């Protein structure tokens, strides 16, 4: 510390000036950050980088691969649209496209209706409501591979829960072959997907339900609306935006489903449960044709792109 008052004065002034400059700099930085476009980009940059690394890179690499004949450990040969031409004449590819559409449509309808029902029940007041809500999330939380192994047991022809219930209750004399028959195998994977995806719908719609003002229901009741009338003209219209968004997301997730089919049926019997995702995997990893497998995966993009456009338009309109 300086003992000279003169020096001390000038030192204090310098310090003060530095502090002023530093405050000024800090303020200017804060003002810069607080500008809307700067702040937006600051917030957006980390997730964008994340998406670019973990979604963008694999996606564009997949697009690149789909134009090449590229085998595992081999060098790529440009084939243009050759892989897509090959797929156009591949009956298994078309079967997997059909299976994916059936699977996605059936599972989404079941999840949407079931989820709505689940949300309506969960919106009522009853004892242990909180714990019931938490338990309903279990299918969504348990890793798919683990829960699918449990479903293998549930579908077991002799010891499985479903067949035991059917036979013990007298509803059937012998159990159903859940995974040994093409139709039943498709139904079985739809059931598992629905079971797993129901909580996503239920919880999202429940959140939507809780935003509907009570006054609307009260007014409708005073006007003489029945329970069904209140649901039809108050609840459902208010929920439509939530249902639309959740359904769109669910379609995308269901369209890409892979794990449960891979574990439960491997795409069999006789390709009857092969989805586009399992077929793309089978071609890329099993057969080692990375280009062809990528072409299958890329074939899913137009459908999903269309859904994304619809979703964006809807959100903008809203």
């Amino acid at each position, binding site marked *: 510390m300086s003992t000279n008052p003169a020096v001390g004065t000038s030192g204090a002034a310098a310090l003060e000036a530095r502090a002023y400059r530093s405050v000024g700099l800090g303020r200017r930085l804060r003002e810069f950050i607080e500008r809307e476009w700067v702040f937006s980009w600051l917030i957006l940059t980390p997730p964008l980088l994340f998406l670019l690394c973990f979604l963008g890179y694999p996606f564009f690499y997949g697009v690149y691969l789909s134009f090449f004949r590229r*085998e*595992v*450990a*081999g060098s790529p040969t440009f084939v243009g649209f050759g892989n897509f031409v*090959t797929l156009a*004449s*591949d*009956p*298994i590819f078309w079967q997997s496209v059909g299976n994916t559409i059936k699977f996605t449509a059936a599972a989404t309808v079941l999840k949407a209706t079931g989820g709505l029902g689940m949300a309506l029940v969960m919106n009522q007041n009853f004892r242990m409501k909180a714990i019931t809500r938490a338990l309903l999330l279990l299918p969504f939380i348990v890793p798919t591979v683990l829960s699918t192994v449990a479903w*293998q047991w549930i579908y*077991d*022809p*002799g*010891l499985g829960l479903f067949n035991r219930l059917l036979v013990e209750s007298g509803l059937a004399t012998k159990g159903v*072959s*859940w*995974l*040994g*028959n*093409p139709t039943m*195998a498709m139904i079985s994977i739809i059931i598992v997907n629905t079971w797993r995806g129901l909580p996503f719908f239920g919880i999202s719609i429940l959140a939507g339900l809780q935003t509907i003002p009570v006054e609307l229901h009260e007014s409708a009741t005073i006007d003489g609306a029945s329970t069904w009338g209140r649901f039809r003209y108050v609840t459902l219209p208010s929920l439509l935006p939530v249902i639309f968004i959740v359904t769109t997301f669910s379609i995308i997730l269901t369209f890409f489903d892979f794990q449960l089919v891979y574990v439960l*049926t*491997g*795409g*069999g*019997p*006789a*390709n009857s449960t092969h989805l586009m995702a399992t077929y793309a995997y*089978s071609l890329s*990893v*099993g*057969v*080692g*044709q990375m280009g062809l497998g990528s072409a299958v995966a890329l074939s899913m993009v137009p459908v999903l792109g269309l859904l994304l456009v619809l979703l964006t338009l809807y959100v903008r309109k809203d």
Partner: protein
Amino acid sequence: MKRPVQSRPGRRDFLKLTAGAAAIVGAPWIARKVEAKPTTIVFARESSYVKNFDEHFIKVMIPAYQKATGIKIDYQIQAAGGSAVPQLVSMVENKSGADLAWVQQEWLYRDALVDVSDIAEAVGKENGGWYDEIKLLSVDNGKWKSVPQANIGQLMVYRKDWFDEAGIKQFPETWDEFLEAGIKLKAKGHPFGMSMGHGFADNYSWLYPLLWSYGVTVMDKAGKKVALDTSETAKAVDYVRRLYKETCIEDCIGWLDPHNNKAFLTSQISCTNNAYSIMVSAKRDLPEMGKVIEHGLNPKGPNGQRYHALVPVTHGVFAYGPEPQAAKDFLRWTMDPKQFRPWIASGDMYFAPYLHAYDKIPEWDIEPRVKPYHKVLETGKLTSWPAPANRAHGTVINRWVVIDMFSKACLGAPTKTVIAEAVTQLKQIYG
């Protein structure tokens, strides 16, 4: 004043100076690197159904190798049941992960494997020679790309007590007798469970031998011409359809590899085609059942021949590893009888060596019911047989072309249609 050009340090001089400095600083490190032995070798292998086999490797072989060479072996056990191939493909694509491995479906990535002819030839010479059939897999363009370790035998696994009850004292010798036996057993509530789904062993291990025993192969020897389109194929398809409808549990058409084990161990089926892992599990967990399990050879077909499908275990060294030679040295060491024989014995001969010197070793007498698995080597063929085991064959296997030909027929499709569909696919695949 103009400065002389020579005295001005240019960019090139700077680079030279930097390179020189780097060389001086880096020289000791480079020298160390050249001299240094690797400290660890990563060996990836699918887990064995016989627990002792992996335990022997970990507790006896790894410490012994470390003691002898100072090199540690990092044994990466891959989960059984189909996850090994994706992991191997991923390793090859990323050029990382393991120095050597059980190279399942090696036709997918042979280019990434080093030549191990020196090891395979020396081991063959010292051990009575290799079974010829395995050379069709391990030798590519005249070079050994993998060293065969052993075969996992696949046979008919059946409940002796139930066969006895149905009056069948000997395991059927022909496919027709097998059908008759199945009809009797199904009538008594004990159906067969012959896997026909999208698995990787238990389906091929009886459907391919059955096809061969009807005198049919999928491709010709050169792998150029589709050989499946014959009247004998139609007979084989008709036979399998009948076998499925009259003897089998309905579910088996969609079974993956673990499903028949589960069905057998829960007494839902009386016979299936499998490795002897079912007996291993039964002896461990269900001793009563363990006593009544027997193994039968695949029946003979109309051509009077009996066949089995090989499920090979081969070890290969990845070319991209930091020290392929060190990995090769380790592989050579494992094949030395001093190590190899106790290792094989620890697995109760679940892994049958492709070396003739091991044909008559007393270890085969560990359990009389295991002995038939040695017969698999005598009549065993690769699923590509007689064609080369190449990428095209891998495509046939991984797209279940032949398996689905049979399963579609069992689901009601006409014989001609299923054969025509399979032939079309084969022509596309083989070009």
